[in-house]
């Protein structure tokens, strides 16, 4: 039954922002289906609108065109069934690891005894039971992101979105986290939409990769990753992996040559604006 939930259908989605009296088109006419329990990565250069699309599926960025359905119901606002893990540190600094993980259950009004049981279980899965009474400020980046995963997963979301969740981690920790994410997904089988600009990460993790164009973001290429599961870090050096990687890198390079008009500085600025837009809503 769980395997059936979590289908996402994006129909002619367009997202525009008003930024210093200019309309900025972040995403243009994207239509794509995510099947329940699948692992899909949005791959693209920074500022290509992939985070905006993610925000729209989560429900805190509004569409200017089209609609998004999750399990046949249109998305209007964020809720606990669609969890998001951000790159930024956004654990509640005033709550312990346990308090952070318990938050979503409290919001849903689940009784204490059951909360305790669910939190224990998920902390065990992300191997943080020993640190449950620590405050986030005392944890390493990798541990903080494990708390983030646990905090979202304890709600048993049907869809989990991750926005460059491991970008700030060192290579070794990133690999560990990627393997842990695959393990968690394998156990819980939610639909995952993963945003990254790291080609290795995209291929290693996903069933399917959507390569996005520069702003305004459109889906340029949509391909399945034929590598066998379960995936491990060893596959990073296999011949098949390298062929795919080369293919992706070429696509991305073409994309950056195709549109060199927009300077990097401008894009960074636009990302910030996009962000304030979300806050003010």
């Amino acid at each position, binding site marked *: 039954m769980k395997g059936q939930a979590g289908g996402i259908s994006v129909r002619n989605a367009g997202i525009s922002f008003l930024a210093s009296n200019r309309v900025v088109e972040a995403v243009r006419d994207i239509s794509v289906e995510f099947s329940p329990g699948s692992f899909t990565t949005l791959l693209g250069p920074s500022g290509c609108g992939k985070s905006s699309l993610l925000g729209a599926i*989560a*429900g*805190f960025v509004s569409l200017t065109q089209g609609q998004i359905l999750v399990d046949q119901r249109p998305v209007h*606002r*964020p*809720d*606990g069934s*669609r*969890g*998001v893990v*951000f790159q*930024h*540190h*956004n*654990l*509640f*600094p*005033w*709550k312990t690891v346990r308090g952070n993980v318990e*938050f*979503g259950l*409290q*919001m*849903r009004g689940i009784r204490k005894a059951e909360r305790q049981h669910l939190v224990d279980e998920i902390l065990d899965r992300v*191997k*943080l039971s*020993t*640190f449950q009474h*620590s*405050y986030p*400020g*005392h*944890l*390493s980046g*990798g*541990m903080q992101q494990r708390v983030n995963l646990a*905090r*979202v997963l304890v*709600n048993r979301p049907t869809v989990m979105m991750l926005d460059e969740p491991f970008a700030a981690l060192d290579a070794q*920790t990133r690999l*560990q986290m990627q393997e842990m994410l695959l393990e968690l997904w394998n156990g819980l089988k939610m639909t995952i939409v993963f945003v990254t600009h790291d080609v290795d990460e995209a291929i290693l993790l996903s069933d399917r990769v959507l390569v996005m164009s520069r702003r305004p973001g459109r889906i340029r290429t949509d391909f399945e990753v034929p590598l066998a599961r379960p995936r491990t870090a060893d596959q990073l050096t296999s011949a098949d992996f390298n062929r795919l990687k080369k293919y992706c890198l070429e696509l991305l390079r073409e994309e950056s040559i195709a549109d060199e008009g927009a300077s990097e500085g401008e894009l960074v600025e636009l990302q910030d604006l996009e*962000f304030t837009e*979300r*806050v003010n809503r």
Partner: protein
Amino acid sequence: MADALVSSSPTLGNQVRPAKLRKKRLFVPAVIRCASLLACIVLWYLASTNKWNVIVNFENVPSPSAVCQAAVQLVSSAKFQGHLLSSVARVFSGFGCAAVLAIAIGLGVGRSKLLSDLLMPPLELLRPIPAVAWIPLAVLMFPNPEESMVYITFVGAFYPILLNTIHGVSSVDSNLIFASLTLGANRVRVFSDVIVPAALPAIVTGLSIGMGNSWFSLVTAEMVAGQFGIGYYTWESYTLQKYPNIVLGMIAIGLLGMLSSLLIQRIAWLFMPWAKLGANR
């Protein structure tokens, strides 16, 4: 398992310091601080006993020993204690009212444009008026001097608390708000479970500045309009030419101000254990 986790988190490893090292770390600064205080007293002693007269005239400044003698006599006297008690009572009632009102208004104004438009214009208009300038009108407005002095301390404490609360509320990290929304929080819970705790450090800053201001305002008010209180006592000592008592009054004011700030900090740590942990690092 636990070993692997510790090794992946350098910050956690650093936290456990050998007791000896910690002791030395605390001991050396303590010696330096005591020496600094002692040097000030020695300087005061030299200046007052030799009656230095270079720009500043120390001829009428009582020596440390004279002040000590006065202290020994007075500290146990009911009259002096009465002055102290009435000042403390005024500060705590004025400051208490200011804290409750300023935090309540600040939380509202920081989150609601309507409340901000409604309440801030008159408050901004009154803000540049120092508490001391309220003394004449306060004496006229309140039925007895006691209440007018409590009002002056209230005014002194009110603005720093209000402005810091507004600042704390309006600068809450938007990532935390997103996180709570995607974890299923509604508007009320976002306010009570995210915005209020996130603003707490700024509120505490406001409280401790406000506490300093309320002592400052009270002492002035007591000197001008009081019949009891440590400020009145200090001024009375001047008119009665009991010079050592002036210094004693000043020291008492300094100590009371310091102790009340310390009290606020300690109470704050009870509510914000995470901030204390951060400060010790």
